């Protein structure tokens, strides 16, 4: 059991939770994730770590409501117990010790790039963060990420704040202006990560994406999360979640992520009907 200590509403559909999980917090590395299950009938879902504090024994998770289980997580309140929380899982992201990193966070992904920013800054790497959302009020965690970055750029699909357009387009503009990035990290919806990969491919800027395929156990046991990277099958749960974006077979990843769309819709409809 892990107790929800704090809850913050980031947007109407995106919530931040600080959860009591001392062993996870003590061992976590930036880029890792946890698996959560809420009740005895529940499914196991992977969630990126947005932050971890070994001294307090807490982990911070950002969850966007898209289906039944994420909706249930979002409805947790302070003091509620999480039945199962396992982690930290996966590997730390690869980090350089110098240079200039550009972190691209799309939607809820703005949370997952925060621990990367913290680690890169610790290593003395200069940081530009690019955060995107549909509209101004959906831009999340500016208070956390902006102070952790040397440069903080925001973009919205409707232009209500910052650059008018997608994160990949803003990144492309910055690259065209000669931004001296030496490495790029992108976390967010798979279409956005793919667009970032295509944006950086021509210049060969080293780019890592955090893949979020369907997972079951999260410990390398089932292979549900297999992805093709550089022509080889990898398990995102133990080999990832960060992979070289220019090697990822995104077409396959997109198809596989839709394996249970019908079941997910049914589960959500039934949950909303009750």
């Amino acid at each position, binding site marked *: 059991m892990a107790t929800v200590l704090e809850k913050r509403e980031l947007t109407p559909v995106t919530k931040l939770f600080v959860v009591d999980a001392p*062993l*996870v917090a003590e*061992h976590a590395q930036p880029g890792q994730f946890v698996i959560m*299950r809420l009740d005895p*009938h*529940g*499914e*196991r879902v992977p969630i990126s770590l947005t932050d971890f504090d070994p001294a307090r024994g807490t982990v911070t998770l950002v969850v966007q409501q898209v289906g*039944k*289980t994420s909706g249930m997580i979002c409805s947790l309140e302070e003091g509620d117990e999480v*039945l*199962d*929380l*396992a*982690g*930290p*899982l996966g590997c730390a992201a690869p980090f350089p010790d110098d240079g200039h990193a550009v972190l691209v966070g799309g939607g809820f992904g703005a949370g997952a790039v925060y621990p990367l920013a913290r680690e890169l800054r610790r290593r003395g790497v200069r940081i530009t963060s690019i955060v995107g959302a549909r509209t101004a009020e959906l831009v999340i965690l500016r208070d956390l990420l902006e102070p952790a970055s040397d440069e903080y750029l925001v973009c919205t699909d409707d232009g209500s704040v910052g650059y008018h357009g997608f994160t990949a387009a803003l990144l492309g503009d910055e690259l065209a202006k000669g931004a001296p990035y030496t490495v790029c990290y992108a976390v967010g919806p798979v279409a956005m990560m793919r667009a970032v990969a295509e944006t950086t491919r021509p210049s060969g800027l080293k780019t890592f994406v955090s893949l979020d395929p369907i997972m*079951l*156990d999260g*410990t*390398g*046991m*089932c*292979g*549900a999360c*297999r*992805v*093709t990277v550089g022509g080889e*099958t990898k398990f995102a749960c*133990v080999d990832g979640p960060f992979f070289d974006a220019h090697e990822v077979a995104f077409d*396959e990843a997109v*198809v*596989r992520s*839709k*394996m*249970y769309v019908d*079941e*997910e819709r*049914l*589960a959500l409809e*039934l949950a909303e009907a009750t």
Partner: protein
Amino acid sequence: MPIVYPAKTAMPQLDPVARRALWDEVAVGYTVERALAEARRCVQCQDPLCEQGCPVGVPIRDFIRRVALGDFAGASDLIRLKNVLPAICGRVCPVEHQCERLCATLGRLDPVGIGRLERFVADWERAQPRDGGAPAVERQPEKVAIVGSGPAGLTAASDLAQLGYGVTVYEALHAIGGVLRYGIPEFRLPKAIVDEDVERLRGLGVDFETNVVVGKTVTIDELLGPLGYSAVFVGTGAGSPVFLGIPGENLKCVYSANEYLTRVNLMRAYSFPDYDTPVKRPAKAIVIGAGDTAMDAVRVSIRLGAEEARIVYRRSEREMGARAEDYRRASEEGAIFEWLTMPTRFLGDDEGRVRAVECLRTELGEPDESGRRRPVPVPGSEIVLEANLVVIALGTNPNPLVPQTTAGLETDRHGCVVADPETGATSRPGVFAGGDIATGAATVILAMGAGRRAATAIHSYVQSSRQKGSDNGHGHGLG
């Protein structure tokens, strides 16, 4: 000279047609009358060869004699001396490759149904009122950590708790039992039995910690250091699924057996949407492989509504790894067997779902490394078998998490932790290993045997460390 009936006393089982839609255990178990009849088929050899075939050395002849005399409690005591999970082993042991293969009646008559009798005794005992688990006579000051709650870990935990050690079992998943929980389906091993065995261990004082992924949540070094365990037993199993590496393997609805069975057994996807984890339930299923896991998977697919459920295996019936009983039951339930058939490619539809498996027929050539005849593809024999679900049941590799995160723990070229087969001792002092993590994928009973031997070795190791510690003026611990 008593008359010995040539055939094994039949095991009552659920109707093959009715059970296609049921998750209940298929083999119902012997009645007292049937158990007595079967036990009386045992000729009570002077030198019982069957016992040499038992990896944990159950005193088979003597327990069967007790059964024949109607002394089921006595039989149970004898079995429990050597086997702490008899209700499980009586169901899942590949007896025809072990004890029953050596039965003296063999060749002329059916062997004695040793597995069925073991199960009968264990089930009889489960039905008796409990006096509560007897705690250890003498408490030891040391603690031992068990990593993984499968058959190896549970056995080691039981033995060490009875020796008086404080025992904590760490499990990565949210439920205890390892392969007994996620791998073996309810119709072959009811989960209530696993639950009872776990409760029995709790009664002995064993602590269970779920959701602890050793190597990630805590490390072996921390267990031996700050957490104060005097020794660690690693029984993390062979959890990493093997894929074929042929085109189309990552199409939707191509599952590893581990994924398919975990969805169904651990997550209860057969009750979706009452349970949240889904699983695909199409009309045409193909399972690749012919071991125990493949039989489990094909029988699960039938219960999930497959009208055509096929086993595709590149060798022949003779080389099949599955237990004879489960093969027979799969056949009775309507599984179709494509022997001498080797998948070469998975074909998908325009939405990326598997729709067929392209195969070549094979013939058997010379024996390979495993001693089984090597399948050789027949040129021009391509066939296309339709399937909307494919389960790959070709075995598993050792789970890499603990070896990857434990310095100085030697592994072999297969990724198995190198462990002394007699003691489970590894290259790291204080770290013992056994079961599939040390041997590669094998059986429940072999894992139990390894857990038991390691428990004995851990006991001597801890005692001698204590001796050294007190000689050096230290209280405890390994530094």
